[in-house]
């Protein structure tokens, strides 16, 4: 592929901005740790602004890479995943602002977060070749996650919250299993983004499900910002690696 000087310059600029975004996101994670989850209200506004910027950047990076590199299913699904998460978080934030603190779980936004997992799974299935690992090789990852989700249902009883959290654990298991069977580890940043994505959404589910959640799960928002900053960088790197 012939990348012009101007294109290379804009690419470097974009990549630099994404690394800065990742640094800000990691800073948010560190802030939550330092505050032990006792964040001021302004954190919600700043955190959501960074999250939305990161998810839009991920969708943009996937779209830009798709346009530059040509048809690639991983990138096409990456656009949908980033855009869907942006929509879901916009809905959540708009709901938070307009309706107030009494936000129920699950909301429509949680359906959107589930949709992101599905687009990522489909993206790996369509964009990356299946490796030789047998299906059961994913069991050590999938079974503990499913067991944890079922344990929550057993302890807290079956209701909308626990069932949604179980669904999120199942989707996490499916995403990580697909990543394993499609050798996502060959693209380390993409693997890191996938793992952080799972941790962020599990934290979010636990934060909304547990009656007295530990402060660590309040990292969900900051981790989501890290997730999409990583996805954005991963898509740019992937398109460069995969370019003929």
């Amino acid at each position: 592929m012939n990348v012009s000087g101007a294109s290379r310059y804009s690419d470097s600029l974009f990549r630099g901005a994404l690394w800065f975004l990742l640094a800000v996101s990691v800073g948010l994670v560190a802030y939550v740790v330092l505050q032990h989850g006792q964040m001021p209200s302004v954190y919600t506004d700043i955190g959501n602004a960074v999250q939305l910027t990161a998810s839009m950047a991920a969708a943009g990076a996937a779209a830009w890479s798709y346009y530059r590199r040509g048809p690639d299913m991983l990138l096409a699904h990456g656009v949908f995943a980033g855009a869907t998460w942006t929509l879901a978080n916009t809905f959540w934030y708009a709901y938070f602002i307009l309706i107030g603190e009494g936000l129920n779980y699950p909301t429509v936004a949680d359906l959107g977060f589930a949709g992101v997992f599905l687009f990522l799974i489909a993206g790996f299935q369509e964009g990356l070749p299946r490796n030789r690992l047998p299906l059961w090789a994913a069991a050590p990852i999938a079974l503990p996650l499913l067991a944890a989700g079922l344990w929550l249902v057993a302890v807290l009883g079956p209701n909308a919250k626990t069932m949604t959290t179980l669904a999120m654990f199942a989707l996490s298991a499916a995403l990580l299993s697909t990543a394993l069977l499609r050798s996502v580890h060959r693209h380390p940043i993409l693997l890191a983004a996938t793992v952080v994505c799972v941790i962020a959404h599990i934290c979010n589910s636990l934060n909304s499900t547990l009656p007295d959640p530990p402060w660590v799960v309040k990292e969900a928002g900051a981790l989501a910002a890290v997730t999409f900053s990583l996805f954005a960088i991963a898509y740019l790197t992937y398109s460069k690696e995969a370019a003929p």
Partner: protein
Amino acid sequence: MILEFYLAASLPLFFLLVFLEGGQRRVLAFLVWGLTAGVISYYINYNLYIAFASSAVVPEVTMAPVVEEFVKALPLFILLLAFGKRYSKELLVLAMASGFGFAILENYVFVTHFELVGAGAVAYAVMRGITTSVMHGCMTAIIGYGIFLTYGFSRRSLPSILFGLYTVAVMIHGLYNLLVGHTGIGRLLAIDLPLLLFVLLLVAYNWDVLFSKPAESEE
């Protein structure tokens, strides 16, 4: 009265269906399904509203989009399972017809509910016609067009993509319902959103015509 209106509106269309063929019949069938989806959703939503009346949820924002988008798009999912991959971008039009059929019935419910008279009633009807109705059509069309875009994908990833598209439609619908119920810039955005989506879908539908190379056009 909703069931009576549904029967009065849809039964004549069934007679018309007998005379139509091919694409025309499919479009009208989807429109009739939209009307049917309106009735089904009305009763499901009504029962959900009663069930969650004491909780703090906002049903029109948190429940209605989930139910309505699923019922409106149901024939698309069934078509896909029944006929596999024999579909074209006509799916966008069929899906939109389902959404518009739904909107016709919902408009009837809202217009009769508020019992407006005079110019206010006309203005309200026109406003619904160019905002909420277009929103319903576009939401289902997004799913239809998305399915068309998956042409050539492996069957394994179709369920993921279908559910993913459904979540997109639900969220835009939820966001619309959330913003339109409030004043200020949010409401303005909500009013503009359906028309913007409509234009985007129109461009996507005519992409080949609008952006084809001259040599291809001559052929």
